[in-house]
């Protein structure tokens, strides 16, 4: 997808941002190059302080870059801010905006006017969003009486009112319970599916969320993009070889792990269940072998050898690294460790 010459939804070139701080200038972004295609759901993954929010603020016209340039659907975020704002919307996690005295419906109606929707069309969209998020029962409730999850659903409903071509989501599920987070993720997917070309830029430090939702991901740390690609591409970066887990009843007496390692195309063989006990606790005992191969095709030789030796095959699965492992390899620490040592953005 990247490298295309067709117009991009987001095009950032050499974006840098330096903040003045008491202890001296702080570089939040350092030469970010980014291209997001129309219709993509692009994730920016990184620990607190990595520069994710700064990047989203620049792209959403809230902040000027110190260096570089960026455009949204060909509109410059520095010089064509008014036009950019007509096609975008933003949801941030932990957002408690709004007026406590207004009801949910009134609040949405107010923003529909701010977004330039004609009154009737605006009210129809307000009611449609209320229905879409399943918050009909709180439509006449004051904002001050809403729970965190309800508030975030309201924020999402607000952000969909103007049918934005680009939606910026800055840690949108932070503080939400599992069910509410799943609801909003489903709505984001549905929102994109409704109209080809709708683009979403998501910042998060929830690995599973990024893995589940994003077409492509950029891993950011200390203001730089360390790697970007599809989740599968990123995982391949840390695991170039194929890794399979093979479950058998027992390793034949005539066979050792070393003999398996000697097979063509086999790189490594390790016992996953060192004690040989039944991993599940039920049924026949099973022994799992983690087998690293130069290519998937070498698996056939391993299975044939095991079968010829008398082992009964019980399971085969291909093992993939997680984004967490990708992150650790690229950043040099886990995301939770990063959060602890970070100063925050």
């Amino acid at each position: 997808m990247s490298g295309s010459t067709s117009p991009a939804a987001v095009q950032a070139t050499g974006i840098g941002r330096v903040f003045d701080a008491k202890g001296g200038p702080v570089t939040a972004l350092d030469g970010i190059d980014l291209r997001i295609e129309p219709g993509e759901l692009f994730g920016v993954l990184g620990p607190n302080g990595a520069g994710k929010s700064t990047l989203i603020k620049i792209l959403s016209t809230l902040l000027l870059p110190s260096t570089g340039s960026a455009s949204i659907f060909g509109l410059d975020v520095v010089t064509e801010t008014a036009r950019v704002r007509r096609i975008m919307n933003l949801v941030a996690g932990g957002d408690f905006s709004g007026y406590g005295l207004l009801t949910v419906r009134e609040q949405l109606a107010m923003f529909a006017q701010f977004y330039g929707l004609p009154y009737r069309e605006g009210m129809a969209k307000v009611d449609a969003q209320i229905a879409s998020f399943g918050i009909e029962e709180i439509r006449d409730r004051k904002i001050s009486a809403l729970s965190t999850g309800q508030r975030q659903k309201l924020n999402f409903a607000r952000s969909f009112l103007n049918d934005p071509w680009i939606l910026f989501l800055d840690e949108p599920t932070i503080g939400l319970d599992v069910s509410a987070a799943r609801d909003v993720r489903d709505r984001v997917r549905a929102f994109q599916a409704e109209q080809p070309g709708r683009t979403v830029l998501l910042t998060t430090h929830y690995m599973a969320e990024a893995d589940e939702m994003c077409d492509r991901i950029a891993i950011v740390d200390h203001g730089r993009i360390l790697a970007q690609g599809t989740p599968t591409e990123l995982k391949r970066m840390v695991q170039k070889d194929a890794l399979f887990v093979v479950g058998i009843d027992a390793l034949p007496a005539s066979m050792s792990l070393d003999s398996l390692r000697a097979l063509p195309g086999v790189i490594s063989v390790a016992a996953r269940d060192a004690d040989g006990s039944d991993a599940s606790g039920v049924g026949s005992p099973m022994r799992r072998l983690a087998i690293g191969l130069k290519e998937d095709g070498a698996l056939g030789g391993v299975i044939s050898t095991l079968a010829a030796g008398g082992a009964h095959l019980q399971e085969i699965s291909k093992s993939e690294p997680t984004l967490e492992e990708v992150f650790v390899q690229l950043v040099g620490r886990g995301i939770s460790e990063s959060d602890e040592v970070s100063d925050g953005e």
Partner: protein
Amino acid sequence: MGSSVVGAEATALISRIHEETSWSLGRRVRHAFVSVVARAYPRVIGAAREPSWLFFDLVFPILGMCSIVFLLRSRGVDEAWIASTILATALLSFWISVVWMMGAQFHWERDSGNLLLYITAPVGLGAIALGMAIGGALGVVIRAVIITVAGVLLFGAKYQVADPFLLALVILAGVAAMYSLGVCLSSVFLISGREADHLGSLLNEPMQLLGGVYAPVRSMGTVGVVALGILPLAPAIDALRQVAVPQLAQTGILPVGVELVILLVMTIVFGVIGRMLLAHIERVGRAGGKLLARAD
């Protein structure tokens, strides 16, 4: 996951988006107008939704008014001054709303996260500020009317309004000038932080004195003339006193017509300065990154 649009489809999509984002002048004006109304709504509805606000906004001004009236009566002052005090107290409600509510509003909007949403919406801060002002003024009208009615009922004040249109014009011009100043104050308070807020509270009583709430600005000599040129409250109360209480017309520092012009000029000047300050806020906020950001 989304499915990306590339090639000719992407080109067509971007042409469509560029067309959608090119708003005509008429559309921009209509949008600004409805945004003003939309932002005014929470201000107007607020008083009805939170009766305690109305109660406290009425009780304290009426108590203040009573204390001045009792003081004036104990000194045997002409009853015309009682009528004047009641009107000044009613007009003071607008002033207090300007200094406290308008002044602190952007500060509050920023800390609640609303300011970021306003900035990222295709609506100018000018429309938001105007909505705040109009909504604020409309919300205070009920209070001002109740204070006036309470004063009339409690103290039997009498008014002789020869020209109701002129009276309405004076009130309208006074309120417009005050809220125009309020737009400036809201920007200044946001830029200067809590210090400006504290300074505003500190100067509240002196400003009321200089505004002619307790005594005509004419009696203050040069200080009164200066106040007339700076504080919208001063020409507004001075003109109101001349129009609604003719017995006190001789206490006016300038003819009503001139004071109306002063109020009009103040509305325009403060409006222009306010507009510049709002643009400055956005510019500085986007450049520095802190002014618009919520203080977490």
